């Protein structure tokens, strides 16, 4: 039956990812991946979480938010305080980072109830900057000199967080609640008139997105030894935004793919210090010119090899 089939697909994908996890874990403990590659994998994981979480806000719910680095920063600092100052275990610190960021998401969700488009963009950008400036002025977390954090982020943690993020976002999106969010993106007035509590779902999207970005912040803080307010400026938000748009607005797999691709490209370009940013910017411009809809458009990866006849009424016809 359909239920069974759908549930099967779900468990199958979990199984596959566990196998992937084990392979990487074996390679790490077997010394097949040197620390540089390990670090790159961590960074990819963190960026995937960031991209996916912003995808929920922009790609799914259509709220033009360009202050995502703010949530990352809140998560990073909150979790660093947990481990470094309060000596809590890493797991607790990740959770607290996520929750604090979610709280920030609720706060920034509020202007989103009144603002639209570019006005909302500016407000979220302002929020991100406010977070950065507040951190800059709190001596408890080191102010401008930043806060030193121990290295606790490991592959199992990153993997678990990525898996959690993707599952939460995918399951949310492909449910009636996700559709409610998409309907807000498509036409807020119509969604409202069709019985969707748009206020509620916008805030939910911000809160979930921020929560996941907060977890990414925790992983980030505990991977790079030091966190500095200057690393969470609006340019960082743009980096995350680029993942989402380049992958294809509205496509989760696109966002993930772009996060992987751009992280690899960026890392690779470290070798060309003089032309690095020039190449990077050219890559951006050319990709956007030739694929303005993003790498995957609005499609998902799975739609490329979807089984036929999964549904009862699945007559795949296209008229457009």
């Amino acid at each position, binding site marked *: 039956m359909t239920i069974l089939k759908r549930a099967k697909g779900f468990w199958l994908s979990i199984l596959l990812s566990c196998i992937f996890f084990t392979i990487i874990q074996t390679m790490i403990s077997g010394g097949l991946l*040197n620390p*540089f590659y390990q*670090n790159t994998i961590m960074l990819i994981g963190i960026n995937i979480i960031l991209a996916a979480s912003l995808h929920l806000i922009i790609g799914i719910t259509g709220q033009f938010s360009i202050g995502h680095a703010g949530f990352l920063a809140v998560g990073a600092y909150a979790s660093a305080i947990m481990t470094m100052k309060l000596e809590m275990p890493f797991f607790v610190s990740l959770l607290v980072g996520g929750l604090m960021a979610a709280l920030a998401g609720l706060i920034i969700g509020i202007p989103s109830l009144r603002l639209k488009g570019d006005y909302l963009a500016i407000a979220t950008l302002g929020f991100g900057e406010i977070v950065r400036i507040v951190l800059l002025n709190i001596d408890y977390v080191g102010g401008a000199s930043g806060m*030193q954090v121990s290295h606790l982020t490991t592959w199992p943690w990153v993997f678990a967080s990525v898996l959690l993020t993707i599952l939460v976002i995918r399951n949310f999106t492909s449910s009636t609640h996700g559709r409610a969010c998409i309907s807000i993106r498509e036409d807020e007035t119509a969604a409202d008139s069709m019985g969707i509590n748009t206020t509620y779902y916008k805030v939910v999207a911000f809160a979930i997105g921020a929560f996941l970005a907060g977890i990414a912040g925790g992983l980030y803080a505990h991977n790079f030894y030091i966190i500095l307010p200057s690393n969470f400026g609006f340019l960082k938000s743009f980096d995350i935004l680029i993942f989402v748009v380049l992958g294809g607005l509205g496509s989760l797999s696109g966002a993930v793919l772009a996060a992987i691709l751009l992280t690899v490209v960026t890392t690779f370009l470290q070798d060309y210090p*003089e032309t690095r940013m020039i190449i990077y910017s050219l890559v951006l411009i050319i990709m956007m010119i030739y694929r303005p809809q993003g790498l995957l458009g609005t499609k998902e990866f799975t739609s490329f090899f979807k089984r036929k006849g999964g549904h009862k009424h699945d007559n795949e016809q296209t008229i457009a």
Partner: protein
Amino acid sequence: GCSGSDEKASNSSTGKEETIKVGANLELSGGVASYGQSILEGLELALEEINKEGIDGKKIELTTVDNKSEAAESTSAALKLTSQDKVAVIIGAATSGNTIAQVQIAQDSQTPVISPSGTSPDITFKDGKLNDFIFRTSFIDPFQGTVAANFATKEVKAKNAAVYIDSASDYSKGLAKAFIEQFKANGGKIVAEEAYVAKDTDFRATLTRIKSAKPDFVFLPGYYEEAGLIVKQAREAGLDVPFMGGDGWDSPKLVEIAGADALNNTFITNHYSSGDPDEKIQNFVKSFKAKYKDKSPDAFNALGYDTGYFLADAIKRAGSADSVKIKEALEATKDLELVSGTFTLDDKHNPIKSASILEFVNGKQQFKTKIDPE
């Protein structure tokens, strides 16, 4: 440009080969790209000179990695240099934060790191523990602040000083802290403590505020880009009291930005002065200008240059390109004559240098006094 990081990966720090691999992890793009780029210019000049003869016949091969002025990228760059390129030594980063981001990696892989301009004490010594593979070329000077405070009290006869710091810089904060302590100990009063952030351009509002506190001396530890603007805008706002800064002011650009008139009645503590007739310094200025289209070197150029010689000296004494031997040699550095002063390392891996006090007179630095660390 820098030498490529091309396929000679088998060369590692075993000491037998012709080249010694050195990595540079610098801020070549992003917010403080100008610092990183200046350091690289100085460093490349130094290496070019050193490689002319080589160190015991060996040449230094530089692999440069850009860290985008981000801590995360700095970590990744350090990992790349240590595990991919297998360099013997890392030079960088320019800022303390980005240096801290690679401390653990250097310690773990036993690769010495020399930060040309990272001034935070935490870099080398944190929580009572020495990071024994980490070094720096710059000074963490409380010393400069102390010297400035004594100068203010004794020479300027200042009673009410204002302090205006760059809150994004440990360097600026460190100098200010020492200045305030010493100035108060000398019986003076701090009438205003204000702050800006590097890359600001308009300081008029804060200067107006400082002016209304009626100081008779302003201590302005910061880098020349902002210091020049601040002095200029202060003079325009009618704040005519003496200003004083540290070695971060040192750049010909300072005079261009502030204007020679505005700089009258300002002082700096420095370890060298590009106007110093000392032969070593003049040679540096000359070859720098020759290599870089007649550009006059600034403080970061000098630090990058000195870092090159600091390292070369150690490699020579180590007689090997082995990381651990180089580290030991670096630790033993003593009375090394560099452009930015005579250089001895203390047990916290911080260089001890003497300081001079210079005055700007119509755009020219004039030597006033030289003060040795006690």
